[in-house]
């Protein structure tokens, strides 16, 4: 196992721990949020962005050199129709299942057998999208780095 793998595994463990500790791996929590009955999940997301954004902004400005991945390059995507079409389909599935990809792996980790069903469905959905993209000869959704804005 490389150092990068170990570090990413540790960050994943931290992320999964935090994710589950606010109940993001529970249908009822996500469903109440989407019913707009409980705004706590929005506060979690908002304060997480509010913490990460200024740190990343500062690191980018300072031309931070990462210990394991070279010069820091923040990934950005310009607006494209796929963000809307993909967002509509993703949002529908999210509403039906109360699960995003992170919910699936963390409910499985917490002992839910339904996590396996969710992951199977999500992998099938990705494979289906790739099959569609190849048939239509539409460019696949590879991240395109945009030049950093100052």
């Amino acid at each position: 196992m490389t150092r990068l793998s170990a570090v990413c595994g540790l960050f994943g463990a931290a992320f999964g721990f935090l994710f589950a500790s606010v109940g993001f791996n529970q249908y009822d929590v996500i469903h109440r949020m989407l019913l707009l009955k409980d705004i706590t999940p929005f506060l979690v997301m908002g304060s997480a962005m509010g913490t990460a954004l200024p740190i990343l902004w500062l690191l980018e400005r300072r031309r931070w050199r990462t210990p394991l991945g070279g010069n820091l390059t923040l990934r950005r995507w310009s607006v494209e129709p796929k963000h809307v079409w993909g967002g509509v389909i993703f949002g529908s599935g999210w509403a039906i299942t109360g699960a995003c990809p992170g919910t699936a792996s963390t409910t499985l980790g917490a002992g839910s057998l339904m996590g396996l069903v969710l992951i199977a469905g999500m992998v099938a959905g990705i494979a289906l999208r790739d099959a569609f993209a190849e048939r239509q000869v539409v460019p696949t959704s590879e991240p395109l780095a945009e030049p950093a804005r100052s």
Partner: protein
Amino acid sequence: MFDVLPIPVPWYVVGPLMGLTVAGLYAVTNKHLGISGAYVQVVDFSRGRPVETWRLWFLAGTVLGAAAVAMLGGHPQAGWGYGALGEYLSLPALVATLFAGGVLVGFGARWAGACTSGHGLTGCATRSRGSLVAVMTFMVTAVAVTLLLHALTGGEL
């Protein structure tokens, strides 16, 4: 198992720590935190395309981190449970619904390029305009579909 972790832990503790995780992963490894990309690797692997192993390690980490939370504070969906949806649907219907919904989630995340973490959390933190559009679209859609399901099930969901 031990019941020492009160779930949910307050948002003002977890939110900033989650933000530090996003910024920390970028600062140390230059990687953009996102979960759906890990599932993409499974498809890429099965088609003989190059695999980004760091994503799989990250995903495995999330499984273990959530297992630790379940041990410290329990998990209401352990076993066959699935909250209110599990009570509303029979088990075969629940499995079918979660699989079909999962297909939509995977299809949409692949099309949009990322999910609630890659676009929602990290993309917004890098001030990515495409991410912001994706987030606004899936949030509005998810709320609308949820309210529709609520109405269609007579308020049971």
